[in-house]
């Protein structure tokens, strides 16, 4: 504990949390406002959620988002975990390697987005959900790798040696000794990747192509916001927010707080 005056500290905390939570709380509250307008509260209602459910475009976008998220998560988790294990058991660590692995997280997403757009255009690839998936894997695998590596840093490698000493092959050791210990981190990484994919806008926007069939939920939300504030957006926002928060809380519980950056 520090020697700072307590009332001042509490004030700072109070103001900061107010700043952080008021805007999103307002959104959630408005989504249940019968009138849908910030100017008048006319009663509690879930009618805007009902409106959402009837909106075909939104439902299609949600479906697309789910497909993209699931597909990219599966691929990214596999690749990312293998990468993490490979990097950590390697004796020689290169700075070049580290740069490549961390690059997807550092490159501004708009740059990555246009780079991928140019790439696909040059190769004359028709763009759609598949190109979004491929693009999402790029940053997702970097995050999964980071999460799994964090867990591996505290991994006691002597159990691997013990397993081999007791007669197990490398494959068996991986399967029965390493993976069980890693699995919470792998799942945590997968949840993180899933959430990032669901929330991702820019890269999806640029790599979706021209077709109306490959619109994801964030793209839909963006379009709706551009059009103007409507109460359905409030309801949609609440759902999307709740989902991300849930997934990431789960992810952290699993990994006990060992997320990248901590």
């Amino acid at each position, binding site marked *: *504990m*520090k*020697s*700072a*005056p*307590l009332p001042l*500290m509490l004030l*700072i*905390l109070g103001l900061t*949390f107010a700043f*952080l*939570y008021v*805007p*999103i709380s*307002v*959104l959630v509250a*408005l989504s249940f406002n019968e009138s849908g307008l*910030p*100017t008048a509260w006319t009663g509690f209602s879930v009618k805007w959620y009902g409106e959402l459910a009837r909106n075909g475009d939104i439902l299609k976008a949600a479906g697309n988002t789910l497909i993209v998220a699931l597909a990219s998560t599966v691929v990214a988790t*596999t*690749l990312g975990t*293998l*990468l993490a*294990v*490979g990097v950590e*058991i*390697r004796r020689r660590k290169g700075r070049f390697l580290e740069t*490549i692995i961390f690059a*997807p997280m*550092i490159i*501004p997403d*708009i*740059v*990555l987005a*246009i*780079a991928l*757009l*140019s*790439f696909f255009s040059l190769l004359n690839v028709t763009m759609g959900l598949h190109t979004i998936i*491929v*693009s999402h*894997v*790029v940053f997702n*695998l*970097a995050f999964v790798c980071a999460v799994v590596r964090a867990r591996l840093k505290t991994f006691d490698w002597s159990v691997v040696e013990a397993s081999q000493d007791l007669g197990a092959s*490398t494959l068996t050791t991986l399967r029965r000794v390493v993976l069980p210990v890693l699995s919470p981190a792998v799942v945590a990484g997968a949840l993180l990747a899933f*959430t990032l994919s*669901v929330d991702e806008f*820019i890269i999806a926007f640029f790599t979706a192509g021209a077709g109306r069939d490959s619109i994801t939920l*964030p793209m839909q*939300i*963006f379009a709706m916001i*551009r059009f103007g*504030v409507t109460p359905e957006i*409030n309801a949609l*926002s609440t759902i*999307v*927010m709740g989902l*991300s*928060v849930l997934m990431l809380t789960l992810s952290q519980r699993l990994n006990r707080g060992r997320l990248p950056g901590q």
Partner: protein
Amino acid sequence: MNDRKPLYLMSPALMWLSAFMVVPCVLILALAFFRRGLYGGIEYTLTLENLALVVDPLYASIFLKSAWIAGLSALIAVVIGYAAAYAISAMPRKHQPKLLFLAVLPFWSNYLVRTYAWIVLLNREGLITALARWFGFEGELPKMLYTEPAVVVGLVYNYLPFVILACYAPLSRLNPEIEEASRDLGGSGWTTFRRVTLPMTVPGIATGFVFVFVLSIGNFVTPALLGGGQFQMIGNLIYAQFLTANDWPFGAALSMVLIAIMMMLLTAQTFAAERGSGGRTEES
């Protein structure tokens, strides 16, 4: 484990990254040196005119404005973030993880939604206006949405949780006996903060600042949604080149400059992080 095994494990991911990250980025680099074709598309003649255009006063001013906005946002975020992180670290140890979790939680929600929330607040018919009216204010409120301050607020709001996290890390690792030593030697609370705590936790501030700056300067969503049609930052400019103006080479050139700025900052930050000293609890 022999030395070949790691390579097998890493190769699928590395191949993916090479194909879908390295190559596209190199492509962009190359693209900057070509010319926009007559009807859009790319004319494959090598030229430096795109880069020249980048430093043209018209576009340079956009770069400067973006840097200004990014810098301002980073500064504000760091001031608020450090204060909040300090306050959290001043709370009883057992409450700190929960408080930190609460502070970081908003960061995990969709950033479109988080930006949108400010539209709802700042709108002409938004919440703030509604509140003012409720308090009896009759006149015309100054324009809040679609202004430069709105963009800054949006950026600060989006990245504040990370700054709190970044500043909290060195603060929580601080050996409490060092601050006590300062007080024991006669330093007041403020002097202790100024001469001991602050210098020792600068790496966190640097990390936070660079993070916000780098993410803000290339940001597209926040200026687009909160800045209104007239407002242009580099992100919007690049977007325009690719989606409306159809001048991909120029867009590529702009991206190059953006990356260059980013790399400079990251290098500077690594420098600062190495200079900042320890003071971990595991002393001697």
